[in-house]
């Protein structure tokens, strides 16, 4: 960002005493200048496509803006949101969505990674089979879930009918409660493979010596899991849950394709609300205020979380 300051930092880095090297270094670019030349293009690109729009979003949030023009309205957009009971519900719903979904992803990821880490024949194949939901476009995965949740033709409703749980077809996405939890399940489905993979990689990084020492001392599997595996992979668990929380908070496509935020706003999270307001209704100002609130909430959440991460790292050591 502040690239111009860099150029004056031309102090020589010459730790090596060899004079020939020193001479060549004088001819060639200094390390900081070269480094900034290398990261400059990427920085510039991010500045134009991410940082500037971010600043624009903040500016627009104080405007009444649409397709026509814009007019300064001060804090009116925020005032409206502060007064809106619907918006409060949306915030609560978004956090509920996030904690529930991330919690499930972490639990399933931990179970999945433990299973895939077990020394059984075929685990190489299982590891590959877990990945598809992560690597395919979410939109395409959601078409699969739309089909599963279909009351008349979907296998879930079909199974429930033949087991006699429901009399007729059950449309999972048509009722407030069931639509919300159906979307959570689909979101967990998308997010679990990544969590599983990272936990698995962390588990494989744990030194075997630790397990063997414990095993020699007669520690059982569960004890080893609790007292060695979990503490050893704790830093990855913590950083993964932050990453997963951010993704889940911002999860848009899944909800949009399954329900578009309905029925009766039951699946409208902050991001869906923002999209509907801004892109759906061209209320750029009101949408921007919502976007700023998202960034603010995520920022506060991340800072709090990083404090937790620090404590965890201190306790378990940065492995």
């Amino acid at each position, binding site marked *: *960002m502040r690239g111009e300051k*860099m150029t004056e930092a031309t102090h020589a*880095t010459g730790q090596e005493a060899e004079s020939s*090297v020193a001479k*060549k270094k004088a001819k*060639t*670019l200094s*390390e*900081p200048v*070269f*480094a*900034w030349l290398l*990261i400059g*293009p*990427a*920085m510039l*690109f*991010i500045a134009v496509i*991410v940082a500037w729009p971010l600043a*624009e*979003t903040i500016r*627009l949030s104080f405007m009444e803006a649409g397709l026509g023009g814009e007019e300064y309205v001060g804090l009116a957009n925020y005032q409206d949101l502060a007064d809106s009971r619907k918006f409060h519900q949306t915030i609560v719903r978004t956090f509920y969505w996030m904690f529930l979904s991330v919690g499930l992803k972490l639990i399933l990821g931990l*179970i999945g990674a433990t*299973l*895939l880490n*077990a*020394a*059984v024949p075929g685990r190489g194949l299982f590891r590959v089979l877990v*990945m*598809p939901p992560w690597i*395919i*476009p979410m*939109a*395409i995965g959601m*078409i699969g879930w739309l*089909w599963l949740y279909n009351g008349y*033709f979907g*296998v879930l*409703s079909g199974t429930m009918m033949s087991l006699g749980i429901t009399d007729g077809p059950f449309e999972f996405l048509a009722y407030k409660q069931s639509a919300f939890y159906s979307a959570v399940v689909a979101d967990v489905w998308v997010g679990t493979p990544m969590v599983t*993979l*990272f936990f*698995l*990689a*962390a588990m494989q990084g744990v030194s075997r010596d630790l397990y063997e020492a414990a095993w020699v001392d007669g520690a059982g599997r569960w004890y080893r899991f609790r007292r060695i595996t979990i503490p050893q992979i704790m*830093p*990855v668990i913590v950083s*993964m849950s932050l*990453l997963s929380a*951010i993704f889940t908070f*911002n999860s*848009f496509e899944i909800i949009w394709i399954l329900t578009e935020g309905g029925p009766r706003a039951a699946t409208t999270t902050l*991001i869906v609300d*923002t999209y509907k307001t*801004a*892109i759906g209704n061209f209320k*750029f100002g009101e*949408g*921007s205020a919502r*976007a700023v609130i998202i*960034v603010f909430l995520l920022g506060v959440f991340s800072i709090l979380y990083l404090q937790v991460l620090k404590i965890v790292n201190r306790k378990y050591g940065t492995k």
Partner: protein
Amino acid sequence: MMDKYTKLQMVGIYAAITVFLIFILLPFFEMFMASLRPLEHLFRSPYQFWSEDFSFQAYSDMWETVPLLGRYIFNSVFIAFSVTFLTMIFVVPAAYAYARLEFPFKNATLAIFLGVNMFTGAVLLIPLYRVLRTMGLLNTYWAMIVPGVAFLIPTGIWLLRSYLEKIPKELEEAAFVDGASRMYTLRRVVLPLATPGLIVVGTAVFIGAYAQQFLFAITFNQQRELQPLPAGLFEFIGYQDVTWNQMMAAALTGILPVLLIFLFLQKYLVAGLTAGAVKE
């Protein structure tokens, strides 16, 4: 031995893995089954687990129902390749700087890059929409490529950096002592050594680029001929009825490219993607 399981434990592990995989793979299985059923059988109520007349008819009909389907698949692949190419051009030098060089604000700028990950999704769409409109890029391929690149640069830098750090420094230093310029060293010494890493990161970026098209497509592009597959698929939801079987066939055809790439490279990918996480 420590890793030995009893028969009962083995059964338990396999049973649990099976349940886990059913959850992961059920949608794909059902999509495949649906793609094989004739349309009128799909709509048969009560639900049938088995149809007598499975066929691959939908896989040939789908090209007629949505005539642009081939184009959509091409667009998806084209956009993903363009995004990957551009992303790598930005990522390679930056990742090298973070892996090897010392410079002021190194950690701060890296944090800024990684912070971009927080803004994925719809947060920036409003101004981005206006930026693209001002630049006259709305309803062009660029409208889907440019934002795609921006959101993949951070991940790319992060992944490639941890790969480059593992390359021994001595070769670069040798070239440097021999009088090679920094740029020459990067081009002729570092990049050839880093080729496997470049392939892994490039593939990861490609998969990301292929996966993230939907939001940008539905927001920044209204031109049907330019639409990527994830957006184009919804054309199977017609005014009259939904040709579910063909939609499923098209969806499965559309994910084939990424699945194949993933299968070929999965061993390296998994190791490459998780390298950063484990080290830290």
